[in-house]
């Protein structure tokens, strides 16, 4: 193992290198670009033996990966914001083709107006495309999750594409120490891809095809069933990662100081780090607060969440994007998961950090206090309302 001071983007690049991705295809977009620039260096120097296809759009980038995966190659691509939206059609193709692509996504705001700040609107609007979604909190987690993602994506029982996201600038361009595992260790954890259900050159095989109502539903159900099996496969993958590399990523919904908590805040990505400090402060003051990190968004960790809130009075969900005509998307999902919970706590959807706004410890503390006050609204625009008050 080697400690390196890396950006979140370079953590993605090193993970693709260690995974020995065979086909890489990408198109530049801020703030993703340095991921694929670094990979280009790896390929140019011979460190990574891969075909790197430089394409004329993100749509083509993902098509290259879908087609390469159809022949059995291990593929990697990365994008952000508008690029991910342009890929939308191909996201469905990837899951429908059962292509185990791993993609890094730097979460960035969607235009208009143009904005390159951290925001989850890009990936949230792709939640129904059949991709497994991971949201990372640190650069270390980015690297570890990409490696796990390949094992998960290529697992015989899964065979689905996976996106590993990181917040724009808060991770993508933030450097911090990252423990980079040895290639031999990674090779032991992640052997070459075993191709299942791929095209066989020299034989009559058609992947994609068309069907009437008779078979189409089978294909859809198969994707759904594979997504459900992620729940069983992920813990096994994480156990092996822990055994070989020595890090435990904590499953789909890692928690922090939730024992005996009256209120719990659910966060995603980098907001989690800030919230940890706030929880410590509040706990020191004797307030019974806890934190849960929504690390896997698809498949959604329903059981873990229901178990977590058994004795909780109130839950807050912080979203870095929102759904027009609804609350925050993660809050919507949490609300759906809790419908069948034995104990249904009250729920507040906090909207914060939209379009790259900083979310400070002060603001997170206020969220906890709102929840503890017992008069939390259903939806709360955390930072905007405070701005308005400050201006007024």
């Amino acid at each position, binding site marked *: 193992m080697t400690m390196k001071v890396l950006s979140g983007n370079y953590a993605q690049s090193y993970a693709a290198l260690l995974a020995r991705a*065979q*086909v890489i*295809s990408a198109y530049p977009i801020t703030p993703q670009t340095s991921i694929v620039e670094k990979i280009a260096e790896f390929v140019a120097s011979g460190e990574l033996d*891969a*075909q790197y*296809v*430089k*394409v*004329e*759009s993100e*749509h*083509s*980038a993902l*098509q*290259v*990966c*879908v*087609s*390469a*995966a*159809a*022949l*059995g*190659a291990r*593929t990697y691509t990365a994008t952000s914001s508008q690029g991910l939206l342009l890929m939308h*059609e*191909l996201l469905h*193709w990837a899951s429908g083709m059962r292509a185990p692509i791993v993609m890094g996504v730097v979460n960035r705001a969607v235009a208009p107006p143009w904005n390159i700040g951290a925001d989850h609107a890009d990936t949230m609007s792709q939640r129904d495309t059949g991709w497994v979604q991971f949201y990372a909190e640190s650069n270390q987690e980015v690297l570890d999750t990409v490696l796990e993602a390949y094992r998960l994506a290529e697992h015989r029982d899964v065979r689905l594409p996976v996106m590993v996201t990181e917040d724009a600038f808060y991770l993508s361009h933030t450097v911090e120490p990252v423990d980079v595992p040895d290639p031999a260790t990674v090779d032991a954890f992640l052997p070459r891809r075993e191709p299942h259900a791929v*095209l*066989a*050159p*020299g*034989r*009559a*095989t*058609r*992947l*994609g*095809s*068309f*069907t*009437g109502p008779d*078979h189409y539903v089978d294909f859809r159900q198969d994707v759904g069933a594979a997504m459900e099996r992620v729940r069983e496969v992920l813990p096994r993958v994480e156990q092996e990662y822990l055994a070989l590399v020595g890090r435990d990523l904590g499953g789909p919904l890692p928690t922090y100081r939730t024992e005996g908590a009256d209120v719990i805040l659910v966060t995603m990505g980098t907001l989690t780090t800030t919230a940890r400090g706030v929880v410590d402060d509040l706990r020191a003051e004797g307030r019974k607060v806890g934190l849960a990190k929504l690390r896997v968004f698809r498949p959604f960790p329903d059981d873990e969440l229901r178990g977590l809130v058994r004795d909780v009075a109130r839950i807050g969900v912080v979203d870095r994007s929102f759904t027009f005509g609804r609350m925050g998307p993660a809050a919507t999902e949490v609300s759906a998961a809790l419908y069948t919970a034995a104990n249904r706590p009250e729920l507040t959807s906090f909207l914060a950090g939209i379009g790259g706004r900083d979310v400070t410890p002060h603001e997170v503390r206020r969220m906890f206090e709102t929840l503890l006050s017992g008069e939390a609204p259903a939806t709360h625009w955390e930072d905007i309302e405070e701005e308005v008050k400050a201006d007024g």
Partner: protein
Amino acid sequence: MAKLTIPAQELMYSGHAACPGCGPALAMRLLLKGLGPRTILSIPACCWTVIATPYPTTALGVAVLDNPIEATGASVSGLRAAADAMHLKDVEVVGFAGDGGTVDIGLQSLSGMLERRTNAIYVMYDNEAYMNTGVQRSGATPRGAWTTTTPVGEGVRGKPEPKKDVMAIVLAHRPAYAATLNPSFPEDFDRKVERARSIEGPRFFHIFAPCPPGWKFDSAETIALGRLATDSGIFPLYEVVDGRLRITRKTGELKPVTEYLAAQGRFRHLGAEDAARLQSEVRAEWDRLLRRERDDLSGSH
């Protein structure tokens, strides 16, 4: 038994779902004869999506990948990259797209594939409209042709705009090989497939593919119509290797275009003026090809 003039192998199966007399079906059959069993096809949404028959059947005796209509160029780049990365031997990666999927919605992807110099063959089978959706005009529909979106009526005489020149677009990318092919001339067709297979780099086929229901002619006339298209100069046969153009079929004097127009219901409304205009355009293009061939031969371009 007479000696076969094209390969005996059949890699397109019967039972497929093409209309009777389908030009694109014959194009596929002849193409696969020349390409052989180690072909990997990428097919976008087009007539062939359906012709190839529904899951779990397939009418193609080779590996086939479906791709969205606008992404064939990218798909062949991906297949080629994977074949190279995995050291697959002797595979030929081929995109097989319709005219709309190539000159309209797929043009960016085609340009990207050519510019990247992907070692693959891109085939555009040209039935001159969106036929899978039921005859709507595309950028490849010729001027004057009836389609459901260029109807004929009072003051409307089919498509007002001329056909997009896909070969000029492709040749601007300096491909390793580019050729026009016509299933009515199977030997010329096969020779071009063989030639292309002997060359590495981005290669392009523009295949003439008559559509009996879309062009409104009797299904028995597909081959005859194709011959007429080439021999009247509407669809000249040529190839360009390393930038040098060679015409592969010359029959002395071109036949008048009126015969070609009269053979199809989609042109029935056209008058003598329309025919004269087309005739002079065809003549000018044929003369341009002859000049270019002469110049290329003498090396003076």
